[in-house]
C-alpha cells in the first residue's frame, strides 16, 4: 500500500500485484506537465484565430415562461454584429429522437431545446438567443437590443413540490416511464425505477432494531475552475472545425453534427486542455451555438461562459429527498434495507436516480433489499453528470442510517460493515453477483489505519462511511507510430483530465520494454483515430490501458515479423523482451538481438512504416469500493464544523501512477467536504439563483481543509492486463455520510439535511436535533 505522507514524490514504486514493473506503479513526471507549469498549455478560451468574432448568449431572466416572440432586428442592425441566432436557426428533432451517444442514450429533442429555448424558457439562464460580433463590447450591446416577449408562468424548484397535484407542469408532453399515468393527465415525474430482491417485509419482521429516516440534499455544481469555452469555424462549403473544452470530443462532435444537420465527418473536433470537468463537460451548451453563428457569419466564433453563466445555465447534480429504512438483529446482521429516492432532474428528464438506487446499499450483502427511485422535473438547469452520478446522494442517506443503527446496537461502525460486507460472488443490492471486489480489504485497511486507532481529542467526533461505484469501459482507440529512431508517438482519443497521458504512456513503455521518455503521448483530433467514448465513468486508465496494451502488442507483432525476415527464420522463433527482438530455439548463438532502434532504422527496407493500433469496446470494468475516516471539531457557539483529519482508503485494482491515484482520492474527498458543509444553490421566490458565483457558492478553499491521507488498496481487476479499476469517482461517494457521522459523534445530533452549514448546525445545537429544515 502507498501512503501519500510517506511517498509524495520521487520514484517510490507502488506495489505491483506481486510483479516488478519498470514503469507501471512509478511516479513518473507527466508528459504534459511542463506546458502546464509554464502557462503554455492551451485551454478552451486560449485559442485565437484570425478574423475571429466573439459570441455571447442572451439568457432567460425567468424560471418558467412562454416565449411569445423574439425580435432581433435592432441587434442585427448594430454595426459590428455579424450574426444573430435564435430557436429558428435550429431545426427541431423528431419525438423519440433518442440515439446512443457517449455513455447514455441522448434525447436530441430535449437537447435542441436545452441549448436554445423553443416554446418555453424552462429555467433562469436558459439560452434565448446568441450574437456574434467583432468584439465583446458590441456583442454585449447587441444582446441588450434583442426584444423578447415573455409570458411568465408559475414555476417549481423543489422536487417534492413538483410531484404534487397542481404543481406547474414543466413538459406538457412528458409521459411518465415506469408507472401508471391516467390518460390525459400531466406530470413532472419522468421515471420510476425499482431494484432489489427478497421481501423487505419479511426482513423487517426478523429485525431486532429498525431505524427509518428522511434526508434532503441540495444540488451541487461540479465547480471546474475553467468555464465552458470553444472556438467554432464553419466555411462556405459546410465543413467545420471545433475547438472546445470537453471530456469527450467525439461525443461533442456527434451532438453538434446532429443539432446542426451536418455529416459527422465534416466536423473536425479538437479537444483543448480541459480545466476540470468532473462530469459537467460531457454535454454541449455553447458549441452548437458557436457553430451556428459561425455558419451564418462564415468567420470563426469564440464563445466562453462567465462564471455566472456556468452556475445559471450548466448542469449541477441533483438535489434530492430521500427515505431510508434499515433493520438489524442485535448481533449486527442486516435483515432488510429499503429506500425511496426522489431526485430532481432539472427541466428535462435524466437525473442519475437509477444509479443512485443501484448503489444505495451496494456495500452490504443483503437477503431483503428494495430501492425505488423517481426522476422529477423542476425549473432548474438540466442536471449533468457529477463524479459517480447519483451514488453520493443515495449513499449519504444509507450510510448515515447504517452508522446510526450500528450505534444503536453498540457495534463499531467498521466491524458492523465488515460483518455485512459483500465479497466476490455475493449478490449485489442491485441484482448481479459481484466479480472480484475489494470491499472487505478497504474496510480492514481503514480499521487498522493509524487514524482509526488514534484516540480523539475531547469535543471531537469521528465518522466513517463506505462508498461504491461501478466504473465503466467503452469504445476506445489507440495508435503507436514508430519513428525511424525508435521513439514512439502514442496517439490517444481520450481527453486527459488528470494525468492519463502519463499512465497510458507508462503502460506503452512497459509493454514495449523501452524508456518512458521514448514514448510521446498526445490527444488526437476526431480525424486522427477511430471513435473514442468520453473521459468519464473512471474509464480512461482502464479502457485506455487495454487499448494501449493492444496497440503495443500489435506493434510488437510487426517488429517480430521484421526481425524474422531479417534473420530469415520463422516468426514463431522470435520473442520480444526488454525492447529487443530475440531469436529463440538455438538460433541465439549466431544472431545478436535486434533492439527497437535497429528495426526502426531499417523499417523501409523490411517493409515500410511500422504502426501498432488497437480499437476496442472495453467491457468488465472493475467496480471500486472506498472507505473514508474523518475527524471533526465543532464550534458549539457558531456552528462551524472543522475537518481536522481525513483518510481515504480505496481499492484501485492496480495504481499505474500512484500520485495521480492519490490525487483522485484527495480531490474527491475535498469536493465531498464542500458538498457536506457549505455548497448549495440558493433560489429566491422567483426561481432566480442568488449565489451564482464563487463568493457565495462556497467550494472549499486551501485553508478550509487538512492534508488528506490516502491508502491505495490493490485487489486486481482480472479483466485488465495490469489489474486496473477506475478510481476517479468512488472518492466522492463516502464523504457526506462520513462527515455527518463524525458530527453526530461530536454533538450527539444526527443531521438529515445537507449542507451542514453553520446556521443549520447552530440551530440544531439550540434545538437539540438535526432536523432543522428551516435554517438556510
Amino acid at each position, binding site marked *: 500500500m502507498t501512503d501519500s505522507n510517506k511517498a509524495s514524490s520521487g520514484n517510490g514504486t507502488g506495489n505491483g500485484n506481486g510483479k516488478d514493473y519498470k514503469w507501471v506503479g512509478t511516479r513518473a513526471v507527466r508528459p504534459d506537465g511542463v506546458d502546464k507549469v509554464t502557462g503554455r498549455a492551451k485551454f478552451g478560451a486560449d485559442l485565437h484565430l484570425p478574423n475571429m468574432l466573439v459570441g455571447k448568449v442572451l439568457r432567460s431572466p425567468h424560471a418558467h415562461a412562454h416565449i411569445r416572440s423574439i425580435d432581433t432586428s435592432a441587434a442585427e442592425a448594430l454595426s459590428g454584429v455579424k450574426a444573430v441566432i435564435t430557436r429558428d436557426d435550429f431545426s427541431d428533432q423528431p419525438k423519440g429522437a433518442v440515439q446512443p451517444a457517449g455513455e447514455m442514450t441522448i434525447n436530441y429533442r430535449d437537447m435542441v431545446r436545452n441549448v436554445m429555448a423553443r416554446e418555453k424558457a424552462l429555467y433562469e439562464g436558459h439560452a434565448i438567443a446568441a450574437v456574434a460580433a467583432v468584439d465583446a463590447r458590441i456583442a454585449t450591446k447587441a444582446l441588450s437590443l434583442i426584444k423578447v416577449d415573455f409570458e411568465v408562468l408559475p414555476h417549481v424548484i423543489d422536487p417534492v413540490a413538483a410531484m404534487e397535484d397542481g404543481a406547474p407542469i414543466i413538459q406538457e408532453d412528458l409521459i411518465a416511464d415506469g408507472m401508471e399515468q391516467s390518460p390525459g393527465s400531466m406530470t413532472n415525474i419522468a421515471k420510476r425505477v425499482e431494484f432489489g430482491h427478497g421481501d423487505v417485509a419479511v426482513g423487517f419482521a426478523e429485525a431486532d432494531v429498525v431505524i427509518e429516516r428522511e434526508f434532503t440534499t441540495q444540488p451541487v455544481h461540479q465547480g471546474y475552475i475553467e468555464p465552458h469555452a470553444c472556438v467554432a469555424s464553419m466555411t462556405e462549403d459546410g465543413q467545420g472545425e471545433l475547438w472546445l473544452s470537453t471530456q469527450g470530443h467525439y461525443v461533442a462532435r456527434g451532438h453538434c453534427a446532429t443539432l446542426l444537420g451536418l455529416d459527422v465527418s465534416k466536423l473536425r473536433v479538437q479537444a483543448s486542455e480541459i480545466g476540470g470537468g468532473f462530469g459537467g463537460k460531457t454535454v454541449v451548451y455553447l458549441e452548437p451555438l458557436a457553430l451556428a453563428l459561425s455558419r451564418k457569419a462564415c468567420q470563426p466564433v469564440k464563445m466562453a461562459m462567465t462564471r455566472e453563466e456556468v452556475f445559471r445555465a450548466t448542469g449541477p447534480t441533483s438535489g434530492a429527498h430521500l427515505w431510508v429504512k434499515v433493520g438489524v438483529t442485535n448481533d449486527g446482521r442486516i435483515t432488510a434495507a429499503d429506500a425511496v429516492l426522489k431526485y430532481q432532474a432539472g427541466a428535462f428528464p435524466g437525473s442519475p436516480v437509477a444509479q443512485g438506487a443501484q448503489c444505495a446499499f451496494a456495500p452490504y450483502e443483503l437477503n431483503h433489499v428494495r430501492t425505488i427511485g423517481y426522476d422529477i422535473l423542476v425549473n432548474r438547469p438540466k442536471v449533468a453528470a457529477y*463524479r459517480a452520478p447519483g451514488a453520493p446522494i443515495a449513499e449519504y442517506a444509507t450510510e448515515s442510517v447504517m452508522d446510526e443503527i450500528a450505534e444503536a446496537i453498540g457495534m463499531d461502525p467498521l466491524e458492523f460493515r465488515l460483518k455485512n460486507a459483500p465479497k466476490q460472488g455475493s449478490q449485489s443490492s442491485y441484482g448481479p453477483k459481484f466479480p472480484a471486489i475489494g470491499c472487505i480489504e478497504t474496510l480492514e485497511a481503514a480499521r487498522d489505519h493509524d487514524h482509526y486507532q488514534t484516540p480523539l481529542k475531547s469535543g471531537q467526533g469521528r465518522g466513517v462511511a463506505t462508498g461504491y461505484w461501478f466504473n465503466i469501459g467503452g*469504445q476506445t482507440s489507440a495508435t503507436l507510430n514508430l519513428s525511424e529512431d525508435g521513439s514512439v508517438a502514442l496517439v490517444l482519443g481520450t481527453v486527459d483530465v488528470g494525468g492519463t497521458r502519463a499512465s497510458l504512456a507508462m503502460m506503452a513503455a512497459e509493454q514495449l520494454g523501452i524508456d518512458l521518455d521514448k514514448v510521446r503521448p498526445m490527444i488526437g483530433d476526431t480525424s486522427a483515430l477511430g471513435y473514442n467514448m468520453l473521459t*468519464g465513468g473512471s474509464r480512461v486508465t482502464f479502457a485506455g490501458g487495454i487499448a494501449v496494451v493492444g496497440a503495443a502488442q500489435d506493434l510488437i507483432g510487426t517488429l517480430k515479423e521484421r526481425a524474422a525476415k531479417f534473420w530469415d527464420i520463422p516468426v514463431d522463433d522470435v520473442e520480444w523482451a526488454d525492447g529487443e527482438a530475440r531469436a529463440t530455439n538455438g538460433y541465439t548463438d549466431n544472431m545478436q538481438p535486434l533492439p527497437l532502434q535497429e528495426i526502426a532504422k531499417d523499417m523501409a527496407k523490411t517493409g515500410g512504416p511500422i504502426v501498432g493500433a488497437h480499437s476496442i469496446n472495453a467491457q468488465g470494468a472493475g467496480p471500486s469500493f472506498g472507505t473514508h475516516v474523518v475527524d471533526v471539531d465543532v464550534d458549539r457557539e457558531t456552528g462551524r464544523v472543522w475537518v481536522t483529519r481525513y483518510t481515504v482508503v480505496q481499492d484501485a485494482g492496480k495504481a499505474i501512477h500512484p500520485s495521480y491515484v492519490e490525487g483522485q482520492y484527495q480531490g474527491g474527498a475535498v469536493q465531498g467536504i464542500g458538498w457536506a458543509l457549505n455548497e448549495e444553490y440558493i433560489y429566491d421566490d422567483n426561481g432566480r439563483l442568488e449565489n451564482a458565483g464563487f463568493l457565495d457558492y462556497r467550494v472549499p478553499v486551501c485553508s478550509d481543509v487538512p492534508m488528506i491521507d490516502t491508502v491505495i488498496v490493490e485487489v486486481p481487476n482480472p479483466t485488465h492486463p495490469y489489474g486496473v479499476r477506475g478510481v476517479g469517482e468512488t472518492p466522492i461517494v463516502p464523504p457526506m455520510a462520513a462527515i455527518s457521522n463524525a458530527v453526530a459523534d461530536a454533538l450527539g445530533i444526527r443531521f438529515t439535511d445537507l449542507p451542514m452549514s453553520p446556521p443549520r448546525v447552530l440551530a440544531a445545537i439550540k434545538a437539540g436535533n438535526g432536523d432543522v429544515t428551516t435554517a438556510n
Partner: protein
Amino acid sequence: MARIVLTGNLQLHTEGVKELELDVNTIRQLMRQLTTRYPGLPADLEDEVAVSIDGTIYQDDWFAEIAPDSEVHLLPKIGGG
C-alpha cells in the same frame, strides 16, 4: 438455459415477469428473443440497458457470450462523470 433477470422497471413491459430462462448464446440473441416474446419492451432496449453476465457488466456488446448456466441481469445503462 441461462437465467435472465430483469431489473429497473422492465417487468412493466413483460406482464410483470422479472425472471425467466432463455436458450441464448449471445447478448444479441437475448435481445432478439426478449423483444419478440415481449413486444411491449422499448424498441431501443439494447441501447437502454447494460447486461451483467455472471457478474461482469457489458454495455453495447452484441456478441458477449452467455453460457447455458449463466446468470444474466439487465440493468439500466451506466454513465459516469
